[in-house]
């Protein structure tokens, strides 16, 4: 059965039984090599255990049916019948042997799946992933420091190439999980970890934090964009550049508002004097697929609502409300959305 057909069958069954499990953020819709081998292993396990379950239930049902008695309970002593006992022994031994064989088989397929989780295609791309409360920071480092890219909330990956993620936590334990691409890996403060990813088809997926980390753990998401190597290279080059100075009077005023109020205490915009690393890097905030832990669409209106009071959508988050004048807020968000 081809991969496409298999996916269609999976979609059909899943739509009936596991509604909503296929599609974005679904382990059953693999888009990466490792996710593919994990999904295969999942179906094998499900098939074998479902079959064993059905057999055991059938035998139990037959037993219940066969031991029906008409009338009341019998008073005579029940003695073992030699013929039945011997047959029973043979059946139990056969079932035992079959179980051992099946478990060994499952263990072998598990081994094969694990071996498939090793990197294959040459030099991996290295991305440093830092987990903060409650946002993700992705840094693409480069031997030339001016080419470094800092992309909070959006992880771009080239299709068909191994990517090694260096996982580091800034504060508490988080866990990196992109269901479509690979399994989970914890980010433990003080213990850097690494995780291999290999995207096999382009698409946009959603990743999330899989280890409870505080008030906004549930909204600590990020967007994963898998694209062709050419588009990835173009994106990376664009992100490494300093944005041009603001062109209109409104965006100029917006930049002044950014630098004159509390924004620069926590945020960086390369090309201005603001270089704080407490909060996410805003140098190319206009090009992000989503805002605020991938919970808000990236539009000027949503940005205005977020800046005015982040505690309304994500209470407990570290960013304070900002009591700005309406005109200042409009200019500020116009400036920020112009930073592509």
């Amino acid at each position, binding site marked *: 059965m081809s991969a496409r057909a298999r996916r269609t069958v999976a979609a059909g069954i899943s739509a009936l039984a596991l509604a909503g499990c296929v599609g974005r953020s679904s382990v059953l819709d693999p888009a990466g090599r490792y996710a593919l081998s994990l999904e295969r292993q999942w179906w094998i396990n499900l098939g074998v255990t479902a079959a064993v379950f059905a057999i055991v239930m059938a035998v139990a049902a037959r037993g219940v049916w066969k031991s029906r008695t008409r009338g009341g309970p019998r008073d005579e002593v029940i003695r073992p019948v030699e013929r039945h006992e011997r047959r029973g022994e043979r059946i139990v031994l056969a079932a035992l042997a079959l179980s051992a064989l099946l478990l060994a088989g499952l263990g072998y397929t598990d081994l094969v799946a694990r071996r498939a989780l090793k990197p294959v295609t040459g030099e991996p791309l290295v991305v440093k992933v830092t987990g903060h409360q409650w946002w993700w920071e992705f840094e693409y480092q480069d031997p030339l420091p001016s080419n470094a890219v800092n992309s909070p909330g959006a992880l771009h990956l080239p299709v068909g190439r191994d990517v090694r993620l260096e996982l580091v936590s800034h504060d508490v334990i988080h866990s990196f999980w992109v269901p479509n691409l690979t399994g989970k890996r914890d980010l433990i403060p003080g213990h850097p970890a690494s995780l291999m990813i290999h995207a096999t088809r382009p698409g946009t997926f959603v990743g999330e934090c899989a280890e409870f980390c505080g008030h906004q753990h549930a909204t600590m998401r990020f967007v994963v964009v898998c694209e062709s190597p050419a588009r990835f290279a173009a994106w990376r080059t664009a992100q490494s550049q300093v944005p041009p100075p603001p062109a209109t009077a409104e965006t100029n005023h917006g930049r002044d508002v950014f630098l*004159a*109020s*509390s924004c*620069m*205490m*926590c945020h960086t915009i390369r090309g201005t004097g603001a270089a704080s690393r*407490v909060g996410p890097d805003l140098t190319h905030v206009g090009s992000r697929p989503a805002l605020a832990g991938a919970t808000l669409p990236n539009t000027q209106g949503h940005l205005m609502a977020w800046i005015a*009071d982040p*505690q*309304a959508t994500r*209470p*407990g988050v*570290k960013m*304070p*409300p*900002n*009591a700005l004048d309406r005109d200042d807020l409009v200019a500020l968000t116009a400036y920020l959305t112009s930073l592509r």
Partner: protein
Amino acid sequence: MSRRGVLPCLPEIALAAALVIASCERERRDFQASTAEAVVARAAPLDTLHAGEDSLPEFLPASMPLSHLGTTYAGRAYDLSEGKRLFSAWNCSGCHGNGGGNMGPPLMDRTWIYGSSPDSVYRSIVRGRPNGMPSFSGRIPQYQVWQLVAYVRSLSGHASFTASPGRSEDMETQVRPENSRRGRAPVDRNHRPEGSR
């Protein structure tokens, strides 16, 4: 009274326990600051405080915006821990160390050059002080300045024991955490520049 055992008294015991537990007050965390609290702190009005003086006694707390927060936050664990987070996030430790002082004066001792009252510390942060303390006027929301004020005072024990931050995970354990420093009476030593008077 005859001995009947505990079981017949169970409803009374349960009632007593429920009353005791209900009286425990849980600290409330207000994440949504009011507009007045979220406005950035601007430089407070000029005062005539000299180095070495305590806060002016005739100063009226009502004239300082939200000055009640200076004492409120001293009893709230969330605000003290936020003050601690902001203290390191905004690099106060760059000059003050973790309270032990470096280029800037220590904050965990009894000597307060410009006064130890919450209002004095507020003004030190917002207006800046001579010889290197920068002004953060227009940069920090009001309520966060008061969180910093409460934390800075907790460094020398002027905050509630139950609310002060505990041991920092990344610090040596020889340093007593904020919640076990006794609040000693502040002493404002006379600090005069060389050559004057």
